[in-house]
C-alpha cells in the first residue's frame, strides 16, 4: 500500500500561565502522499514547528488525529509511537546535536538501536556525511562547527536511517546560497515513490528553485491552507 499521511481536524491547545487555553493549531486538515514534497510556510510563531512535531509523533494533538496508511498513529500509546517515530527522520529548527559526541557519533545515533551491524552502521553514516559534503568533519566535536555545519550534521542524522517520512524545520536557516541549493537539491532527490518529505521554511528559495515543493501550504493563525 502506498504511504499516505493525513491530518484530520487536528487542533492543539497550550495552557497559559493564567490557566486559560490558547489554540496553536486549529482544525488542520491535510493529506500527503508518497512521492510528494510539501512545503509549509508561515510567519514566525504561526505553529509550523508544532505541526511538524505532531507529524513526527513528538506531540499528541488535543483534537483530531493523524493517520499513516489509515492507522491513527497520533493516538497510539507511548510504546507504539516509539515505533512510529522509527519511520520518521526529523531535522529540528535548532540542530539539537549532542555536544560531547563527535559529528560521526551524532549521525550514527539513530542507527544504534536498529540492529544494524557496526560496519554497516559506519558505512551509512559516512554516506550521509558525504551527501552533505561534511565527511571531513566526522571526527570533530560538534561544538567546534559553525551553525551551517551543525545544521548539515543534523540533516545527515535525519536521513541516515533512510526514513519513510522526512520532516525538516527550517533546514536552510544557517546556509549560504550554495549550501541552500545543495540541501534543496538533496531534499528533492529524497522524494521517492515510498517517501514523503515535509519542510517548514520561510526561505523563498525552497519555492524559487522549483524542484522540491510539489505542494505548498500556508499556516496562518493556526489554520493551514494549501496554496495553488
Amino acid at each position, binding site marked *: 500500500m502506498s504511504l499516505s499521511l493525513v491530518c484530520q481536524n487536528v487542533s492543539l491547545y497550550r495552557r497559559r500561565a493564567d490557566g486559560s487555553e490558547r489554540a496553536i493549531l486549529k482544525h488542520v486538515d491535510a493529506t500527503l502522499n508518497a512521492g510528494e514534497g510539501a512545503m509549509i510556510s508561515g510567519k514566525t510563531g504561526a505553529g509550523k514547528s508544532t505541526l511538524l512535531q505532531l507529524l513526527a509523533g513528538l506531540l*499528541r*494533538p488535543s483534537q483530531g488525529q493523524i493517520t499513516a496508511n489509515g492507522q491513527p498513529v497520533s*493516538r497510539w*500509546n507511548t510504546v507504539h509511537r516509539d515505533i512510529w517515530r522509527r519511520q520518521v527522520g526529523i531535522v529540528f529548527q535548532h540542530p*539539537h546535536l*549532542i555536544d560531547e559526541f563527535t559529528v560521526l557519533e551524532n549521525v550514527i545515533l*539513530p542507527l544504534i538501536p*536498529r*540492529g544494524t551491524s557496526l560496519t554497516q552502521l559506519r558505512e551509512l553514516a559516512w554516506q550521509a556525511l558525504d551527501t552533505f559534503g561534511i565527511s571531513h568533519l566526522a571526527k570533530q566535536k560538534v561544538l567546534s562547527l559553525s551553525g551551517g555545519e551543525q545544521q548539515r550534521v543534523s540533516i545527515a542524522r535525519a536521513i541516515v536511517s533512510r526514513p519513510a517520512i522526512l520532516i525538516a524545520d527550517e533546514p536552510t536557516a544557517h546556509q549560504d546560497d550554495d549550501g541552500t541549493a545543495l540541501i534543496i537539491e538533496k531534499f528533492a532527490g529524497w522524494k521517492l515513490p515510498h517517501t514523503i518529505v515535509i519542510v517548514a521554511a520561510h526561505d523563498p528559495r525552497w519555492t524559487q528553485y522549483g524542484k522540491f515543493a510539489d505542494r505548498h501550504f500556508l499556516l496562518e493563525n493556526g489554520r493551514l491552507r494549501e496554496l495553488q
Partner: protein
Amino acid sequence: MPQNVVDPPLEDTKIIHKILSLRSSFPLFAWSVRDLSRYPLETILLFLSIVTLVAILGTALLLSQALSTTAGLLLKDSPSVVVRRVSPLGWSALPAEESIRLARSVPGVLHAGIRIWGTANSSEGPVTVFGFDGSNRFGGLTKSAPLPKRGEAVCGAGITTGENPDFLKLIGHNTLIFRIIDTLAAKTSMVAHDMVLVHPDDARQLLGIAEGHASDLIVDVFHETEAEAILPDLSRAFPWPVRMTTRKEAAGIYVSASARRSGIVYITIFPGMLALALIVIGVVKGQMVQSCNVGLFKALGWTTTNIFQMQLLKALVIGIPAVTAGMVVSYGLVFRPGSSWPGYLFFGWNDNPPPLFLNASGAFLVLIEMVVLIFLPYLAAALWPALRAAVSDPQDFLESK
C-alpha cells in the same frame, strides 16, 4: 483535551520490535561502553565506590557467616553436657572410673566418658594439652589424627615449636619434650588451633593429674532437649559438687561473645557505608544528568526499550565487575591464608591465626545478600530515572534543552 489512546492493529510491530531489540544488543553494548568512556572520572569513581562498598559490607557479612559456620562445626561435635568437679580452690580432677559409673546410672545418659586436658606452656606461649587415646573424642576434628604414643605429640595448626620443628617442649606441672608426629588438618584449626594431642599418661604427668583421674566428664544424651532435664539427676548422682555446662549454654556463651564483637564492627562500618552509598547515589544521579538526552534519542527513533537496555548495559558494565572485585577483596580479607585480623578481632589471637572457613551454602547466602543489599538498589538507582524519562513524551525533554 486528552484523547483516547488506541493500540495499533499491527501486531507484527511487537514481534519486529522484539527481534530488533535482540539484534541491536551488540551495537547498544558498544555504544554503552563508549558512552561510559566519555566520562572516565565519574565512571572510575562509581566503580571504586561500589568496589569499596561491597568489600566493606561483604567482609562483615562473610565474617559473620564464617563465624556462624565455625560455631555450627564446633557445637555439632561438642558433648551434650560437660561435668567438672569444683572445690574451694577451683576446678579439681575427678576420679575417672567412678565418675563414668555414676553418670551412666542416671536415666537418659547415652554415653559417658572422661577427658584429660589442661594448659601448659611452650616456648611460644600457652597451649592446650589434650590426652588422646582414641576412645575419648574432641569432636570429629581429631578423627584423622594418629594416636600418639608416650613421648609423641600431634599439634594443632597454630602451634609453633621454636628452633627445632620436630620437637616440642612443654612446661606444666612437669616439663616434657615431645616428638611431633603429625599436625592436625588446617580445617580443624578454628577449634584445634592451639591444641597438642599427647598420650593420656603424658597429659596427666604434664598437667599434674593423678593416675585414674580426669579433667572433666562428658555426657551425651539421646536428644538435645534431654540435656537440661537430666541436670538435677546428674548433679545428685555425684558425691562431690559439680559444675555442668550444656551444649546450649556453650553455644550461648560463644554466640554472645561473637555477636558483641560483630555488633561493634557493624556500628563502625555503618557511617562508612552511608558515606559510600551517598557517593554512589551522587555519581548515579550525575550519570542520569548525562542521560537527559533521552528525549532526543526518542525523537531519533530510540524506543523506551532501547533506552532501558542502554542504561541497563551501562549499569551492568560498571556494576558486575565492581561487585565481583568487591567480593574478591572481601573474600581475600577474610579468607586469605595468613590473614590475621579476623582472629585478632573476634578471638584475640595475636599470632599464627587460624583461617576461617565457609561452606558453599554460606558463600551463596552472602552473595545473595550482596546482590539484594547493593546490586539491586544500584540497578534501581541507575534505571529508575532513565525509565521514567523513557516512557515520557520526548517533546518535554527537547523543550528543556
